[in-house]
């Protein structure tokens, strides 16, 4: 498609893949940190207060965070139904497992605060394992997507690696969130968690970045075509720099007056953004790699226009009141109490 001769109807799928990309990215960042907090939950008896604080730090947000997943899948459903059918057919079991994980952690969150005291630890365990189940299955699905839904053992190995990588990345952003939202001992612990998770994530990102172009010839050509290569190599360079800077900074945290406590989180958000751009650059405009592009998979223009009008009005509003909610709960999480 040539951008200069494209009609509005041909632009619509591009706009919608943009909105969907935005939803997926926001989901990965927002639900990423609360899933990460769930994974990091320390399970010793003496950790109960820290668990309370950690969960309090995500309390007001997790509902809305998960809604971005519903929006992403909703847009896939609305704009690219043919792609959704193919992807869901290939990922039926991992999707079901992810949903079970999401159900478990969502309800555990509420049950733990309300159940009889002796059941609280059980629900905390459910919360942690539900979070882990969710991130592992999401990572596995990402791996399968990159491998074009192959079922051979190489693809399975890669998907398992991706499952670990995504879990590490969510732990990374979750730990960085805790550095920002907590104080004292828990914050010190969170700094250590962030460093470890950051290194694990770096390994994961390196592995995926190396294997992806090697197994997908199309991806290789795209990345290593002169003169574009000079420009796009900025993405991995900046990502690597982000990891290193964050690691150096974390070594010196927490500082006096809690200076720079928010930097790791926003650096991690930056890393997420870069990794996401890299993936998007590898595949756009294909939506099912090697099978369907966004124009082949798109719905009828009149339906896309109808939802586009709504999205243009409502998405900015959603972003606005989401920002308002973060403004209301700005600051350290120790003050947060359930009701």
């Amino acid at each position, binding site marked *: 498609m040539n951008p200069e001769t494209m009609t509005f109807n041909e632009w619509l799928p591009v706009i919608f893949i943009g909105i969907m990309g935005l939803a997926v990215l926001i989901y990965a960042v927002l639900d990423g940190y609360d899933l990460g907090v769930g994974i990091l939950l320390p399970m010793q008896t003496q950790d109960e207060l820290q668990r309370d604080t950690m969960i309090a730090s995500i*309390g*007001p947000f997790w*509902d*809305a965070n*998960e*809604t971005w*997943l*519903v*929006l992403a*899948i*909703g*847009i*896939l*459903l*609305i*704009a690219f*139904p*043919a792609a*959704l*059918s193919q*992807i*869901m*057919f290939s990922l*039926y*079991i991992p*999707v*079901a*497992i992810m*949903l*079970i994980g*999401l*159900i*478990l952690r*969502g*309800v555990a969150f*509420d*049950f733990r605060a*309300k*159940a*009889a005291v002796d059941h609280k630890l059980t629900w905390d365990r459910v919360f942690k394992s539900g979070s882990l189940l969710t991130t592992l299955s999401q990572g596995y699905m990402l791996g399968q997507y990159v491998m074009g839904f192959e079922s051979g053992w190489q693809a399975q190995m890669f998907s398992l690696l991706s499952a670990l990588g995504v879990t590490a990345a969510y732990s990374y952003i979750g730990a960085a969130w805790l550095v920002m939202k907590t104080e004292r001992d828990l914050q010190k612990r969170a700094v250590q968690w962030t460093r470890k998770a950051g290194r694990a994530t770096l390994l994961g990102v390196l592995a995926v970045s190396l294997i992806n172009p090697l197994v997908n010839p199309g991806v290789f050509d795209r990345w290593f075509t002169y003169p574009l290569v000079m420009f796009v190599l900025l993405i991995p360079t900046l990502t690597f720099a982000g990891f290193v800077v964050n690691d150096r900074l974390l070594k010196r945290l927490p500082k006096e007056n809690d200076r720079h406590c928010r930097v790791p989180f926003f650096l991690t958000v930056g890393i997420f953004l870069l990794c996401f751009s890299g993936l998007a650059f590898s595949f756009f405009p294909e939506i099912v790699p090697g099978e369907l592009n966004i124009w082949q998979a798109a*719905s*009828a223009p*009149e*339906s896309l226009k*109808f*939802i586009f009008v*709504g*999205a243009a009005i*409502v*998405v900015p509003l*959603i972003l606005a*009141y*989401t920002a*308002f*909610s973060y403004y*209301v*709960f700005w600051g350290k999480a120790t003050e947060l*109490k*359930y*009701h």
Partner: protein
Amino acid sequence: MLDTLMLSRIQFAANISFHILFPAITIALAWILFYFKLRHDQTDNPIWMRAYRFWVKVFALNFALGVVSGITMSFQFGTNWPGYMETVGNIAGPLLGYEVLTAFFLEATFLGIMLFGINKVPSKVHTFSAFVVAVGTMLSTFWILALNSWMHTPAGFEMRDGVAHVTSWMEVIFNPSFPYRFAHMLIASGLTGAFFVAGLSAYRILKGDHKKAPRLTLKTGLVIAAVLAPIQAYVGDLHGLNTLKHQPQKIAAMEGVWETERGAPLLLFAIPDEEERTNHFEIGIPKLASLILTHDADGEIVGLNEFEGDHPPVKPVFFGFRLMVAMGLLMIAVAWTGCYFLRRRGELPQWLLKVVVGMTFSGWVATLAGWYVTEIGRQPWLVTGVLTTADAVTPLAAGNVGFSLAMYLTIYVILLWAYIHTLRVMARKAVEVEEFETTTPQKEGTITNLPGATQEGQA
């Protein structure tokens, strides 16, 4: 051995049945909470605040279960019913999209403020958040029922190459059965919420709670139920007439009418037999079905035999309908008896409290029975006249669907048990201590005019 179609249908039914339990409560409870908060803002009476504080926690629990089971729903179309999206995705997609965009984010974000922000925002903003959450739940109902109604009575579209294309969004959204179904569901939720509130409050009183808050909420629940139950009977009747016009085979199954007849009786009981295409053990009131449905004692009702091969399975529709109506009548009786005692004596006798506790989840029974009638009544169609259920199902192997179904069912049984258990724990806790942390806002000074500590024991 069940095939992929049957397993997928059972899975969809299981997921949506489990899901609807919680929105059925929260749609109404959101407005009840807004009412409590508003009354507190207006009167400064702390009892309203105590009522609010207990019920907002119950609300949060219900809402969380609704959210997570709703996420499962949003994946169902893609995982098990690819034919649905491929054929009518141009209509279903945008309607679902508008639900997510206008309702889900609104509810989830403002619920965060409603639950955790009471000390962080001014009281007015907090009340406003409760209002926004209530509006959000209704918007969500609006969009999903627009889509569901369209599947029953499709309008405003044309078929091009086997795919539905929209010709008028107004006709799609406000399709013939939508206004009736929307009203019927909102009131159903009102009744479910009202009996839920009344039941749990009665449980607290029975467990020896002497405080005023549960009595106030018991009264609120019973009054809402007493007002809504008869309205629901009327709206249900209108909905039935609408169905008769657009889906006569569903009505024939509901009434158990096989041969087209004039002066059809209203069957109180019967056992429909699809093999022999007749009913056994009929007990009925002569001519009443014709009178209700056509407003003429000798009116004609078209029988199932006119639709042979193209009508729903009769038994579940027939019995589901009777169960729903019986529940509705029981609701009217209990709510009115309760209001009578409240007016005459100011409180309920022990036996009636027990009955009200027994009715806690009566709304669930009626709502599910009603949904089964209307959804099974649509079979064999997924979208009436456009797409059959069998044509929409995934080509996946039955084993995969069986695996996911088994997982969901296990989780749902555990969660339902945990949910009811937790409600009991919460109610008992509230009997012993006052809705906890009622003192915090005083220190913060954001919730004004709460009474001093000396009045604490009285309320």
